[in-house]
């Protein structure tokens, strides 16, 4: 756990040892907070999110047939917004998960800035995977994800 960027008293996320790729656990007082921290964990593989200005925002609205699919689609947004328009995530606001009839829906606001020379990049994420994915709800929520890098 060398490069978690935690500056708070409680741990946002921690990286585990994985031979080929990046595996992390993100934590929160509830699932929403753990998911917000999970997006920051994904961002941390590519840039220092805590050094990115909150200048622009993007609305995130994804659905998943089950929780793993929801988590995968949601975290893919971090990668997609970066690759398609150079959006660098700095923080997540107002994240909530709604249980619908046959799906889960997640809405949130991503804050961040456009890619520029002031923000050094230090890695790429290819995809968010289902491998070893774990989702623990409750008052000590935890999301474990392997990211293909």
């Amino acid at each position, binding site marked *: 756990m060398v490069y978690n960027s935690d500056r708070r008293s409680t741990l946002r996320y921690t*990286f585990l040892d994985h031979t*080929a790729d990046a595996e992390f656990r993100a934590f929160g007082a509830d699932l929403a907070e753990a998911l917000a921290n999970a997006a920051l964990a994904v961002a941390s593989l590519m840039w220092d999110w805590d050094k990115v200005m909150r200048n622009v925002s993007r609305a995130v609205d994804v659905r998943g047939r089950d929780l793993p699919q929801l988590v995968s689609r949601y975290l893919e947004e971090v990668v997609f917004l970066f690759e398609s328009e150079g959006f660098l995530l700095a923080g997540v606001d107002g994240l909530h998960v709604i249980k619908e009839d046959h799906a889960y829906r997640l809405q949130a606001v991503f804050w961040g800035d456009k890619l520029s020379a002031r923000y050094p990049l230090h890695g790429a994420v290819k995809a968010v995977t289902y491998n070893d994915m774990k989702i623990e709800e409750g008052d000590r929520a935890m999301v474990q994800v392997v990211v293909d890098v």
Partner: protein
Amino acid sequence: MELEKISDNIWEIPRQGEMKVPARFYASAHLLEIARKDKSLEQARNVACLAGIQRMAYVMPDAHQGYGFPIGGVAAFDAETGIISPGGVGYDINCGVRLLRTDYQAKDVLDRRRELLAEVFKEVPAGVGKGGVTKLSVRVLKDILVKGAEWAVENGYGTRDDLLMTEENGRMKEAESAHLSARALERGIPQLGTLGAGNHFLEIQRVDKIFNQDVARAFGLDRIGQVTVMIHCGSRGLGHQVASDYIELMEDTFGVAGLPDRELINAPLRSALGQQYYQSMCAAVNYAFANRQMISHWVRDVFKRVLGSSAGMRLVYDVCHNVAKVEEHRIGGVSRRLCVHRKGATRSFGPGRPEIPAAYRSFGQPVLIPGSMGTSSYVLVGTAEAEELSFGSTAHGAGRLMSRNEALRRFRGEEIRDELIHRGIELKSTNWRGVAEEASAAYKDVEEVVRVSDEVGLGRLVARLVPMGVMKG
């Protein structure tokens, strides 16, 4: 897990439980010990349970755990009754390697290698978030997805001879752009002609050892000291998105109940969804071929500008490391059409196969196996035995040994650069953390991987290449 020793380099998990066929590992005792530490064995056993799998689930000497299928996994399914699986191809569709030979000798380049590398670094976009030089329209992108390297050549990037020396002549003909999502296209547009980050690289090398003079000469590798250029990259975000999209679509259609691992999700090859994935995968393969073709063109430009000429910079070959292809193979003496998945494995066809360029057909195809940063890379030649042993496949690289975390704890990028410079190897990179993560000590020994390949007969040694200059994404 119980393993049966067949010979010094061959091990098997016998058929048991849900397995339809045995799973076989090509590895030395030492490489097997490494593979046992992660989930490679369990994943190979899972692959052996899939519908329509033929003969055995094979695992190459450089194996490590992947998603669903292990990296270094080879599995063939009946083309009529079997399945196709995005997890059996991997996220980086047609991640692959090409090798350019030159007429230069190391001594011609030695004093200029820093300049050469600096110019290549300027010319070839690398690293995360580095957009390609060409701003594409969706219409042109779709043309590229259908035509692959042919599009690149038609647009002035290289020559028709390059196409002859590329697997599939640089174009998988079943490609169809209509089944790619808007997201896949959006990720593809800014990244054409970029190297990408992670383990992708471009190396200026020299031939350091020749194991088989005749075959090496046929491949255009004539003498010790000859300069070569190796390019390793893939289909970038476009390919990753195709994989993610079809894993989801297959889950939505077929469900995940009963799968030991969600990323083993698959579809019958002959189903509508199976065909859509296959055609989209072919489109991503073509994108990667075009990508490597454009980068080759820029490398030639730089050599011409800096050294005066790029004559003789012929393409030796371009191979896919992550792909599924429909091929003819003999099973029990009968010729059968199979969908062969190679995930982190190189096709290794022996003499006579019609897929091989005419100039190489009497020898077997060139197999390109890159080492890790600062270590040797190898050229092997495919064998007839490999068709019996592994559906004509062998290893694709060194294979990771150490997590990126651990590499970051142990190494610093700047120190690795200094050590390489001390050994006469120039290094250019967009980020030092990436260099530390890719430290050669974080990988298995490529020498042992190719030795096993040679001993078993999956691919025979032809030449060893050592780096003079490395550009990391």
